[in-house]
């Protein structure tokens, strides 16, 4: 029986291993220490590692994230939790202008090994202010890396890479996935002794021949459900490509898949305007136009601020049936 871990436990294991490996790694954020994390991602770490390594901050995102950026310039490696990624708006200047730009503006004299992490998803009934999905926005800044794992396995492997990376990494999780279980081998089952997933390497989560569903984060899971329906009810074999990191982006895996299936849909929980899918749809038509048997399609959240009303919120975010309908429209 392979070992199963929840998404949050997998992240916690990544933190624990990296805290042990590198004394410069510090976890900080609101309620991450004594409270054990608002979503219990950091549960038990303060007890194990103490005040120096696991730091409760005041509700002061611009202050503590800017502080983390400054500390990283001196060699500290802060992993900073936004209780919701939605709170990036109050730390915007520190994340973008300082974290994102200081390497360039200093002509490469400074680098900024920070991780800013937390859940970036809607669908939990918390309204527009707490439901932002800014992966397309953050990926719009050269200098940033954007990581959106869809499984516990990927979450662990990508988090370990994020902490070791010397560039600012925007790591976006999902509260809807924190409790989900996946196979995550323990280190003694892994050649090399630890789970590390490089950035810029997509993962084919399901092999298919008729259409490519491309996604990141929780939308990957939605695509897998849609693929099951497509196969069971329509005999359509969908391939599901999880890009895992938005920037850097593994274009080759996408293009190889589309070259095989000749049809593609990008699925994301973000909004359509200048979404991740817009960039990828452009890339597909630009590079493999002649391979396409239909225009590239997108399924995004419906283009309005996140609505509160629970039944409507459910249909604002991509769900399997809407992906199935979109697939049928081009198959």
């Amino acid at each position, binding site marked *: 029986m392979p070992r199963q871990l929840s998404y949050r436990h997998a992240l916690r294991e990544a933190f624990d291993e990296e805290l042990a490996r590198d004394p*410069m790694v*510090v976890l900080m954020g609101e309620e991450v220490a004594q409270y054990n994390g608002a979503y219990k991602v950091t549960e038990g770490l303060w007890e194990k590692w103490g005040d*120096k390594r696991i730091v409760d*901050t*005041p509700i*002061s995102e*611009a*202050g*503590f*994230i*800017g*502080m*983390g*950026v*400054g*500390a*990283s*310039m*001196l*060699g*500290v490696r802060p992993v900073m939790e936004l209780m919701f990624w939605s709170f990036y708006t109050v730390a915007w*200047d*520190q994340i973008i*202008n*300082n974290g994102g730009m*200081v*390497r*360039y*503006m*200093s*002509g*490469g*004299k*400074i*680098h900024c*090994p920070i991780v800013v992490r937390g859940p970036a998803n809607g669908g939990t009934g918390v309204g527009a202010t707490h439901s932002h999905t800014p992966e397309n926005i953050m990926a719009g800044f*050269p*200098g940033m*890396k954007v990581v959106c794992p869809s499984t516990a396995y990927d979450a662990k492997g990508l988090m370990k*890479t994020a902490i*070791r*990376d*010397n*560039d600012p990494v925007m790591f976006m999780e999902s509260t809807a996935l924190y409790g989900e279980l996946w196979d995550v081998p323990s280190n003694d089952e892994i050649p090399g002794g630890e789970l590390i997933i*490089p*950035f*810029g*390497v997509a993962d084919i989560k399901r092999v298919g021949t008729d259409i490519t569903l491309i996604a990141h984060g929780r939308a990957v899971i939605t695509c897998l459900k849609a693929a099951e329906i497509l196969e069971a009810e329509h005999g359509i074999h969908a391939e599901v490509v999880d890009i895992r*990191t938005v*920037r*850097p*982006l*593994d*274009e080759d895996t996408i293009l190889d898949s589309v070259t095989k299936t000749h049809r593609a849909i990008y699925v994301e929980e973000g909004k359509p305007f200048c979404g991740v899918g817009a*960039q990828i749809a452009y890339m597909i038509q*630009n590079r493999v136009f002649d391979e396409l048997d239909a225009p590239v399609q997108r399924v995004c959240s419906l283009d309005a601020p996140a609505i509160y009303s629970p039944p409507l919120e459910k249909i604002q975010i991509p769900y399997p049936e809407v992906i199935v309908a979109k697939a049928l429209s081009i198959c």
Partner: protein
Amino acid sequence: MATLTAPSAKHADAPINQKLTPSDKVALHRQMVRIRAFEQLSIQHYQGGKMGGFLHLYIGQESVAVGTISLLGENDHVITAYRDHGHALASGMNMNECMAELFGKATGCSKGKGGSMHYFAPDKNYWGGHGIVAGQTPLGLGLAYGLKYQDKKGCALCYLGDGAVNQGAFHESLNLASLWNLPVIYIIENNGYSMGTSQRRSSAYKSCLAERAEGYNIDWEQFNGEDIYEVRARTQVAIERAHNESRPSVLEIATYRWEGHSVADANKMKYRTKEEVERYQAEHDPIQVWKRNLLQEGAATEAELKAIDKEAWKEAEDSAEFAKNSPYPTPESIFEDVYWEVDNKTESGSSGRHFFND
């Protein structure tokens, strides 16, 4: 004829100033004169179309950067805002790299990627050069955090203008600095104007801006910045507090900028009078104040100080020649210094696409 304000024997006699040898004192003068020559020459080249963007000049404020930075040791760090030429030169950056940066040349301190507001020299503990008002204040806090985390006895001097005290990031930084006992010293260089808006029109305060530190239980002081003796004596107290007690301070240092907010400040003679500017130039010029100290103490002669002026101008002119003769960055270099992992050709930098130009 206008007279300079009187020196304070009290500050000249402070232990930290008693340690200064005559040649140390002359070196402080040389630093101020170099900064002024560099900036006065940069105006000429700005007006001659050799550089773009903004040019925020420090002329009139030199004693603050030179006095405070002269106190720093191996584990003490400096970070400032966009009026950064003085702090950069005082931290030991050379005129060539600074002038070339203004000209947008590859030999500039930031390879022509930062410009006037974004000078950096981490090897000299100088961390910029930041363009957004008060944006550097959490970074200064982070430098202090980094020092404390690594158990190093040091401090971070984080400079800001009087306009920056109204930004939220500064207040968040003060709270964290005090809460976590971080050795950061915020130095408000109060030149009276946040761009074209006077202090009275922009800030609410009781006695002064630094007093806001009181609410965060941070020690603070307000003093005059035109005499290096006073700047050094009173800043040293804060440095010792940071080194020995790991506690922050807020210092508000009164100073005056002779030029506009930037060279592009079209209204620089509208929000203040010509008489006000001339009075500061005649009575409160920090270079003249220090020169008088040197002459009165016999630390230098008129002839020696004239020679220093001349050397500084020669150095500035040479730096402009260096800048003029330097190449612009290559188009390929646009994509360098974006990602550490790409520049260093690591595995992480080699997988996936990082740049999206076609």
